[in-house]
């Protein structure tokens, strides 16, 4: 009984999540310029096209820049918020946590409109800064949650022990808390990076032609011309996300091993 439930859920899961991807991805290597089966031949030409076209390479480069900036800012904001929250009382901790997580809960279209309006007012619309800032705000709650989880997993006696040995609060944070919570910071950073790298809605509202990110380029590519280049880009995006997820899994495993004692 339990076995059959396991197999049914596994098969359904794969069918819904993985099958559409697996069906589309081979078309990146199709010689035909139409997105149709059966495949006519095998080629890497579309990869060459993507890396040769300035519109794609620019978008890739923009995405990397925005994601890196958003990640750095999100780690700073989310990490500080989580560290601060652990030092407060129980009630305040609940209120502050809810506030810090709220950007995730609000529908992204609402956030996007708010950002577009606010940045427009501030004269930042279309700039890298606006994208980095907006994505950092979306990524910070993820960093916050991940850092908070790893800080809560720390034995509070470690901090007390360091205090009894004469270490100031800053010294304790730098040499005891931070190294032990590092897996949480790293996981949060990866989350923030992927979130920004994949983000469409807010970017759609904020990006100018010269600051277009990869998901936007993909989106407009879909509207203009259905070509295997789009599948190539989608494949690349999936690969980046997959790599990051694998890295995160590794880190969490190591984090768990380190905090077990």
């Amino acid at each position: 009984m339990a076995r059959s439930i396991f197999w049914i859920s596994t098969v359904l899961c794969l069918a819904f999540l993985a099958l559409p991807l697996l069906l589309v991805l081979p078309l990146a290597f199709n010689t035909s310029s139409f997105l149709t089966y059966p495949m006519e031949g095998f080629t890497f030409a579309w990869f060459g096209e993507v890396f040769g076209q300035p519109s794609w390479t620019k978008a890739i480069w923009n995405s990397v820049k925005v994601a890196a900036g958003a990640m750095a800012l999100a780690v700073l904001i989310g990490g500080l918020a989580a560290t601060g929250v652990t030092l407060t009382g129980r009630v305040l901790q609940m209120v502050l946590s809810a506030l810090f997580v709220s950007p995730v809960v609000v529908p992204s279209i609402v956030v996007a409109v708010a950002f577009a309006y606010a940045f427009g007012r501030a004269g930042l619309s279309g700039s890298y800064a606006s994208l980095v800032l907006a994505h950092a705000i979306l990524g910070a709650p993820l960093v916050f949650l991940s850092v908070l989880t790893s800080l809560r997993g720390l034995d509070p006696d470690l901090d007390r022990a360091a205090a009894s040995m004469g270490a100031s609060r800053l010294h304790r944070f730098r040499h005891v808390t931070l190294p032990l919570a590092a897996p949480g910071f790293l996981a949060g950073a990866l989350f923030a990076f992927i979130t920004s790298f994949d983000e469409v809605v807010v970017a759609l509202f904020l990006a100018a032609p010269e600051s277009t990110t990869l998901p936007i380029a993909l989106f407009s590519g879909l509207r203009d011309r259905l070509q295997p280049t789009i599948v190539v880009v989608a494949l690349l995006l999936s690969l980046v996300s997959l790599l990051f997820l694998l890295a995160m899994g590794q880190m969490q495993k190591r984090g768990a091993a380190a905090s077990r004692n």
Partner: protein
Amino acid sequence: MSFIEIQSVNKHYGAVQALYDVSLSIAKGEFVTLLGPSGSGKTTLLKILAGFDPVTSGTIRMAGRDITSVPPERRNFGLVFQGYALFPHMTVADNIAYPLKVRRRPRGEIAEQVRAMLDLVQLGKFANRKPQELSGGQQQRVALARALVFRPDLLLLDEPMSALDKKLRFDLQEELRDIHRRLGTTFINVTHDQEEAMHMSDSIAVMNHGQIEQFGPAFTLYRQPANRFVAGFVGKSNLLEGRIAQGRFQAGDIVLSLPGAAAEGRVALMLRPEDVELAQAPVEGGKAALPAEVVSATYTGDRAIYTAAVGPEARFLVYGSARTGLIPEGSRVHLAFDPQDCLLLR
């Protein structure tokens, strides 16, 4: 001249009061144990001494200086935690070096002190291991070395042996006592294990319900307990509830003439199990004797442990010699003891 002076310390957690007017003075170089059951306030008192918890009222002085509101990092007290609290991302040597690095001592001096400390706790070979690769007893010794390497004014130990097995505990107690003698640092240990307390300490403060019931050396606590709680918590004892009237103690059918008993009214008579003898023949003069029946007899190798019934309710625990075998259960005997060994507790 006392070194640590705890004066009328009260501690409230919300509506709950954890410490009631606790006062204690500890001499320099003394090994003091706070002994009590869980919830007695001993750990609260230790946290207050360490500076992790503020007092609600009262003061703590060290060498005459008021340290009540000094934060833990400026107290210069060593601490050994129940779960050791070793830094898992540092090697054993780095753990021990941490307090010296905080104090910005020169590198050469740090290396030298760490080596001396590792030798003291016999862990020289393990300097480059991570704490989680060591056994419980070894981790315990690293924690001790780390808490002592910076020559603290006071070492606080929070149930340091509770996670170890019995044999290891005994060895570590010996070792700790030895280290205390060699260094001369003032130690304050917290435990619920009265054997551990008696094994290591110069003085023991017995705590219950947030108060200190009695403070004194092990001998005084055992032979002259101040009240029923101390008598029951420190060692085994027989407590017989009764009344004193005209120099005689009376509990149900049992009547004993106690020449020294001046007080009147309700009391408990305390008698240690080793002060009672099971006599199969009538006893000679000078000793009191109560007719009894052996209810249970247990052989533990070094001695025989008997439970003897006196009348329908009173049960006496008696330690006897087991060299010639046990007195069988159901035997009619006499409980013989010197009335001088009886202690009357209010």
